[in-house]
């Protein structure tokens, strides 16, 4: 392993994390602005022009607030839980392909941190680990609201993770690889010279729909935000958290939303593919960002529009509707793959 490879990797990691963390901060602002517009308000507009410095103000507030600790028999778990929630969320960005490769300083540089042949499984493994932060926060807080939020969250995440995983199998059958870069490459080109060969249009519209619904549930967002339903559970698993620890949960939630949106783009919307990418690979990054932004918009739009599910509705919907549909999609994809040869 030469020095150059190590330096390149470190530089890429630093750049990706800088961009991602900045995006997360502005995603929070974007959400508040958009919610404001949808509800005919202005949204935050006091700090800086159009409220653009609001994330900075929020950050300072979180850092300087008092860290209130509940009396709990598990103070260490209480402190570790937000970290357990944040770290897997940030680790997902290691395998997400933001673009193809470019020439820079006479060497070929890939626009993703790494490409591993089990990339997709790695992501599912991380999403499985993310549950622990929430569940342990609920347990360690020593509060009934937190405990109920944590329990609900465990049941909900396990149920919807099944659908999330199974909805992707259709794509895997068509591509034949777990490598996210391979999956994006398989979606290049167009159909009849007009419709792009994305999996969304290429036999997987149902898979896409299932994936997106399950992803909304996995990230605990409206209409599936029962773990933090404020009308019944105060704030769910993070009721007892304040200051920096609360900020970690907050960032983890947005990191998950961004990661899932990026993953949906990669799997179903062709990732960096778009017109002119072959000649100018850097353009791919902008296509990728634009497609991801569509998902982020839908996320916030859902939040502004839909009411929350009841708990039994949530479970019935997950197990009796989404899961059978996911199986049907697998059978359909296999049939297509078998007839196509």
């Amino acid at each position: 392993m030469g020095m150059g490879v190590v330096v390149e990797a470190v530089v890429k990691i630093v750049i990706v994390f800088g961009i991602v963390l900045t995006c997360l901060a502005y995603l929070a602002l974007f959400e508040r602005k958009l919610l404001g517009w949808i509800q005919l308000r202005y949204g935050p507009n006091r700090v800086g022009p159009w409220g653009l410095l609001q994330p900075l103000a929020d950050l300072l507030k979180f850092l300087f607030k008092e860290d209130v600790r509940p009396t709990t028999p598990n103070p260490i778990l209480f402190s570790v839980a937000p970290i357990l929630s944040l770290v897997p969320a940030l680790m997902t960005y290691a395998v997400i392909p933001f673009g193809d490769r470019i020439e820079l300083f006479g060497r070929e540089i890939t626009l993703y941190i790494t490409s591993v042949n089990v990339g997709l499984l790695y992501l599912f493994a991380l999403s499985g680990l993310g549950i622990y932060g929430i569940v342990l926060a609920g347990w360690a807080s020593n509060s009934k609201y937190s405990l109920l939020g944590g329990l609900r969250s465990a049941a909900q995440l396990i149920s919807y993770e099944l659908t999330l995983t199974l909805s992707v199998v259709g794509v895997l059958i068509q591509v034949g690889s777990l490598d996210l870069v391979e999956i994006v490459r398989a979606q290049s080109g167009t159909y009849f010279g007009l419709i792009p060969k994305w999996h969304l249009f290429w036999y997987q519209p149902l898979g896409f729909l299932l994936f997106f619904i399950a992803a909304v549930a996995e990230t605990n967002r409206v209409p599936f935000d029962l773990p933090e339903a404020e009308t019944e559970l105060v704030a769910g698993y993070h009721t007892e958290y304040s200051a920096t620890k609360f900020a970690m949960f907050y960032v983890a939630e947005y990191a998950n939303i961004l990661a899932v949106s990026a993953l949906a783009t990669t799997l179903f919307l062709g990732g960096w593919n778009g017109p002119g990418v072959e000649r100018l690979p850097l353009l791919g990054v902008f296509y990728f960002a634009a497609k991801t932004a569509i998902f982020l918009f839908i996320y916030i739009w859902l939040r502004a529009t839909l009411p929350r599910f009841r708990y039994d509705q949530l479970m019935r919907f997950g197990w009796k509707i989404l899961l059978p549909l996911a199986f049907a999609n697998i059978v359909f994809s296999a049939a297509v793959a078998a007839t196509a040869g």
Partner: protein
Amino acid sequence: MERALFVIFALTAIVAALNVLLRRHPLHSALALLVVLGALAGLYILLGAYFLAMIQVVIYAGAILVLFLFVIMLLNIRAEEARLARRPFLRWLALPFALLLGAEIFYLVRTFEENPVPSGTSVGVTEAIGRELFTTYLLPFEVTSILILIAILGAVVLARRG
């Protein structure tokens, strides 16, 4: 480099396993097992079994252990009090037997003393495993699916009865 990683993962696994044994609270034991599973996934990667390493985290850590945590939280199990066992002498027999078992296994292990594991093997490629599963091992695979179906039915029946 590889040896250093091995030592880190192995020590983590063993220390965490001791925690599974020594902790009083079931929740702490379960979390210690989580650490063991993670360290084992690291060892699998060192052995070139990438697919299994990921599956290990997805199935064991992501599903099975979460179920354990769920049950611990649902029943609100407290730390077990150190009460006397029904037959106290059995407790003192456990340690010698454990040592005996360990010694026995180590004796067997010694026969493989000098053989290094080839590093960077690529046998763990997902595609190869999938091919084997659906050709050579198709029958066991299908039998396993029936086993899981029975397990689901069993769990549902038990849950209904309570």
